[in-house]
């Protein structure tokens, strides 16, 4: 077993933070107090509370229009940061900088690392299907035989979770795969979500084989304001906070975003731009008729106003909470997973009803034949798992 790799032994691209130093933005104090009061009220009244805003007077913005009112690239500020950081890695002759693990939380746009590799003519490792991994484990053959030769060329592994199956028969194959990766002298970039990294590090010692993961600095309210401002000017709309009536992108003289909405959004999205991107779209409301605008938030602007307010979160049924947590944890750990494979990784005798319920509630989303955690629900699901004592990683 190689000696533990210490963070300060390796030089890290300056644009990326070590995962251990990632801290999501904090909520504004007033917002935290309101949340605690709403939480206490919910506990004492045992269930539903009325929405905090007058949704009945506004229509949810249609899906296509929402997509037009959001930036084109969900990865936003992080794509440029990761690209710049990886370009410097690829250009470096320093062997200590040759292996990098980038943490990419749930909801990451497909192929973020692979597209970078493709633009730079780097090889990407195509994932093996999980069924092949299980079959190989059953017959005792290795599945890492398709690793390209260690000839000094950069290798990109877009999503390490695609090689993971939480089954005891597959651990040996995974150990072997990680060990072979760690022994490569060629540059290597691995993308990985926080849940699977936490699991690999705890049960297989991945932190001793590969360097500590990095990720860009969290997107705070100012970064989100700069990102979304381009949409506002391009679409001739004004984004306003339904609760306060304020322009959500307006800033004070010192450059601080003045309204609470983006501060709240940055905190709720854990500083992850694609999560913020999804929550931004879910928050959009527009008035069908001018009279439908709440009186205390009327403006004289001729621009089309898009009102923003976070919808109430879907409540998890208390009786099924422990089963739901197991399903969420397995889905997050595998990134995306089909229903049959999900059933194999769970100790539940029947998973289909629970999975169907979570899909119907919008907490899990189908992507082709597979299921993934809804980006809109991710912050809440992660908080649920963390409160239950499940290790979640930094974001």
């Amino acid at each position, binding site marked *: 077993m190689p000696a533990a790799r210490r963070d300060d032994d390796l030089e890290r691209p300056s644009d990326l933070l070590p995962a251990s130093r990632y801290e999501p933005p904090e909520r504004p104090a007033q917002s935290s107090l309101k949340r605690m009061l709403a939480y206490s009220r919910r*506990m004492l009244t045992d269930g539903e509370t009325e929405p905090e805003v007058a949704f009945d007077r506004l229509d949810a913005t249609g899906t296509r229009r929402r997509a037009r009112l959001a930036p084109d690239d969900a990865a936003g500020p992080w794509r440029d940061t990761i690209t710049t950081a990886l370009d410097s890695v690829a250009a470096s002759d320093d062997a200590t900088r040759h292996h990098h693990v980038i943490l990419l939380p749930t909801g990451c746009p497909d192929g973020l690392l692979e597209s970078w590799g493709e633009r730079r003519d780097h090889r990407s490792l195509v994932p093996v299907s999980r069924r092949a991994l299980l079959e190989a484990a059953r017959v005792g053959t290795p599945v890492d035989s398709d690793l390209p030769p260690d000839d000094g060329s950069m290798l990109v592994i877009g999503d390490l979770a695609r090689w993971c199956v*939480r*089954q*005891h*028969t597959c*651990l*040996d194959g995974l150990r072997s795969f990680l060990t072979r990766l760690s022994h490569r002298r060629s540059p290597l970039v691995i993308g990985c979500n926080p849940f699977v990294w*936490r*699991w690999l590090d*705890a*049960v*297989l010692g991945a932190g001793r084989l590969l360097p500590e993961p990095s990720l860009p600095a969290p997107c705070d309210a100012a970064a989100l304001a700069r990102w979304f401002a381009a949409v506002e000017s391009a679409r001739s709309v004004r984004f306003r906070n339904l609760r306060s009536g304020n322009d959500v992108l307006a800033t004070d003289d010192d450059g601080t975003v003045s309204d609470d909405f983006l501060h709240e959004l940055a905190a709720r999205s854990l500083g992850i731009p694609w999560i913020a991107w999804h929550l931004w779209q879910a928050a959009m409301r527009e008035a069908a008729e001018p009279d439908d605008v709440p009186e205390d938030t009327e403006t004289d602007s001729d621009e089309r106003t898009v009102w923003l307010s976070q919808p109430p979160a879907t409540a998890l049924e208390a009786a099924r909470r*422990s089963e739901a947590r*197991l399903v969420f*944890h*397995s889905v997050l750990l595998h990134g995306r997973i089909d229903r049959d494979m999900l059933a194999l*990784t*769970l*100790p539940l005798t029947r998973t289909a009803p629970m999975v169907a319920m979570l899909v119907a509630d919008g907490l899990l989303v189908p992507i082709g034949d597979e299921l993934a955690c809804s980006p809109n629900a991710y912050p809440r699901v992660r908080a649920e798992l*963390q*409160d*239950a*004592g*499940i*290790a979640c990683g930094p974001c």
Partner: protein
Amino acid sequence: MADASATSPGDDSPSAAAKLLRDIDEIAFVEIVLIVLLAWASVALAKRLLTLLAEQVPYRFRMPLLGAVPISKLCFVMAAVVAIIPLVFEVTLQNLLIIGGAISVALGFAFKDLVSSLSAGVLAVIEKPFRPGDWVELSGHYGEVIDVGLRATLLRTPDDTVITVPNATLWTDPIGNANDGATTLMCVVEFHLAPPHDAEQVRAALDDVVRTSPYLDYDQPILVITEPTPFATRYRVKGYPFDMRDQFVFATDIAVRGKAAIATAGGVEISAPAVPDRGSGRAPTPSGSR
């Protein structure tokens, strides 16, 4: 001229000392009832509120909140007793000595067990050999402590039976506390295999079974202990679930997948010691083996 029979608190005159109990018309019954009701309501409210909060807050705050329940009960009861005593008794030094002496004799004979339980209950709250939320073994019963009363402790067993254990048993019986205030506890699953097998392979397989359990607390150690016994090789698999209320499903998960892993690794489980073959002189055959 002052009424010789009237006294005031702290009055040590001979007439006051002679009178232990207040006159019936001097006793504020309404006040006493109000104090009792207030104490009862405070205890009930504190228990309900703290228990409710413990189930709603993040898991790491559950145990401290549950641990506060018996402490708050004790405080309210003691406050009520301290408030009622001067309303019923003439509180003078001589009277306190008389009361103390009488109580000692009476309780020594008549309420020995009750007093023993009460004092053990007070000590249990102060010393905390266990607290609400702990999984303990008391008087041969294993379960979760749901209430630490002054007289008795309530346990809920894994079969959902509530056992009332008098606190007096704490003086004599050992107490086994599986988690001692922590949010997790060790679970142990045993397997007994017939001796001819690859122990290293079985041990590695069982280790991987624990590592892939959905209930596993990653931050706690995992152990697989191999122990030869006269009739089998015993494997003791040890791990910690992230929520100790899942200890039984965690053990079930390990047991079920462990059996499959053992079979794949070429091991054979046995369920009874080997029966020696007296007639032929051949080696004993373990029951249940192929």
